[in-house]
């Protein structure tokens, strides 16, 4: 049960990552690999500040801002210096590896004795449910700490999903979506496409860094390696989400990305429980994304071939 709750919580935390990837990859059609650097950047900044005794909310916000900066940088490399999108992401990601090491001063910062957002969540849980050690939810024994972390994460992601949905219905958010959809048209309507892409990438990486900051606090440490493969994980979540709810409207896609992240992490937890070698996890994630990207066109090709065979 603890395993399941843990997987759910991590899934919810990583849905911030999924939302970030959704913005860069789906709205702007920009495969932004900066994610692999901004995810640990958020964790590094937040963890370092927490060790210094800074308020967890402030520290988490600082992590988010670090991501904003990283995304802005990628956007500037791409739009002002005309560097290929993928390459600008790779450059910033590589640079961030050193930055992260400098921020933390070492490759790993433990947070076991610090006051974090997880501590806040636990305190909140204690005031709501009293300091009983275990809760009984639908017949399952759940510790107050696990349950309160889960519910707090859920609350935060719901609020964030609503905020993002609202943002994409404002004038500037609509212009951003149009930038990804038809840059020629939105330029003719007076929007600076470069600025929009930069803003979008900033927002995307801010969310990804936030995800890293929250994960560090949940698992109790920040590690310079924790970003490896995050972009692929985010893609997997977004793709699962689209399979679940379709791509018809922005609101549904946002919900889909969150659901996709949770579902994917649950599947991973189950697979690990069944004895999947953790070392194979990234390989399997990559193969999964590959299949998800290729299968739809492959299936339609097979389908269109069939009638010809019949007639021949």
């Amino acid at each position, binding site marked *: 049960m603890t395993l399941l709750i843990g997987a759910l919580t991590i899934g919810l935390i990583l849905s911030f990552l999924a939302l970030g990837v959704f913005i860069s990859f789906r709205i702007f059609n920009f495969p932004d690999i900066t994610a692999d650097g901004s995810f640990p950047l958020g964790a590094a900044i937040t963890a370092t500040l927490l060790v210094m005794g800074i308020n967890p909310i402030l520290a988490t916000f600082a992590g988010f801002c670090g991501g904003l900066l990283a995304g802005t940088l990628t956007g500037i490399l791409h739009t002002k210096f005309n560097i290929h999108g993928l390459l600008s992401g790779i450059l910033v990601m590589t640079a961030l590896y050193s930055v992260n090491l400098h921020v933390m001063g070492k490759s790993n910062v433990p947070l076991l004795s610090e006051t974090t957002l997880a501590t806040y969540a636990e305190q909140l849980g204690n005031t709501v449910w009293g300091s009983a050690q275990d809760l009984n939810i639908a017949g399952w024994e759940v510790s107050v700490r696990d349950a309160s972390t889960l519910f707090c994460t859920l609350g935060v992601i719901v609020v964030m999903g609503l905020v993002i949905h609202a*943002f994409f*219905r*404002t*004038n*500037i*958010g*609509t*212009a951003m*979506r*149009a930038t990804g*959809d*038809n840059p*020629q*048209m*939105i*330029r*003719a*309507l*007076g*929007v*600076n*496409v470069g600025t929009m892409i930069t803003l979008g990438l900033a927002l995307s990486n801010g969310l990804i860094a936030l995800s890293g900051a929250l994960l560090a606090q949940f698992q109790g440490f920040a590690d310079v390696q924790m970003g490896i493969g995050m972009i692929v994980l985010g893609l997997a979540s977004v793709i699962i989400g689209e399979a679940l709810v379709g791509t018809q409207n922005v609101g549904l896609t946002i919900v889909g990305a969150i659901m996709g992240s949770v579902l994917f992490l649950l599947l991973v937890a189950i697979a690990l429980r069944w004895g999947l070698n953790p070392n194979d996890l990234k390989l399997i994630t990559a193969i999964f994304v590959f299949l998800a990207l290729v299968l739809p066109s492959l299936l339609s090709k097979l389908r269109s071939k069939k009638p010809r065979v019949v007639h021949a």
Partner: protein
Amino acid sequence: MLEVNTICKTFNPGTPNEVRSLQSVKLAIDEGSFVVVIGTNGSGKTTLLNAVAGTFLVDSGTIHVASTNMTNWPEYRRASVIGRVFQNPFSGTAPSMTIAENLALATKRGQPRRLGWALPRTVQSDFRDRIRTLNMGLEVRLNNPIGSLSGGQRQALTLLMATWLKPKLLLLDEHTAALDPKSADQVIRLSNDIISRDRLTTLMVTHSMQQAVNLGDRLIMMHQGRIIHDFRGAEKSRLRVNELLDRFEDVRRSDQLDESAAELLRAVYI
């Protein structure tokens, strides 16, 4: 309203693919004038339009719209005074967004976009009223994605969007070339209605002799990056398709003359 002063544009300069698309083009358009541009393929008519729109910056010369020098303005900045409809019906609208969202984008053409709602309830009836003037039954499909519309419907919408805020200059780039004859007719009639209703200063490129003769109060003919004829006023209104074709024939013959003369010279000297 529009003043184009001796602009030049050469693509791929210094390479075998060098194209002198605009060679010292000079053009002044009065406020409220509807100017039609025709020319052979590669004559520079679309390049002229793109130069004014800011798709690229010209090599030399200046461009003024409404007495403002915007020679070095980027494309998005010029959008505050220029409305555009493209040749490709897919270019002017965002396909995965709804009709209402596209219109909302157009209502802010050239204005800063902030955090206000793009689609407050109050605009919906306004949208419906103005879209009804298209007579395409689109007013009931405000929340459908543009991608589900036909080329003609998209072009009509793009036209509506380009003129939603009255532009100081309207640029139409062969905007019916990719449509079937019936839709083309409809879009042309609509364009003419909107232009005469709002007295829009318009520069329209077309490939259709019929449109060139029927529309506008001035006609410009381009060839090899230059303006070679400029019909105005009574001369323009008297102009018939046959005469226009004759002019093209003249151009073709003088081109051939150039070539045969070159051939002759080559035979003598080489």
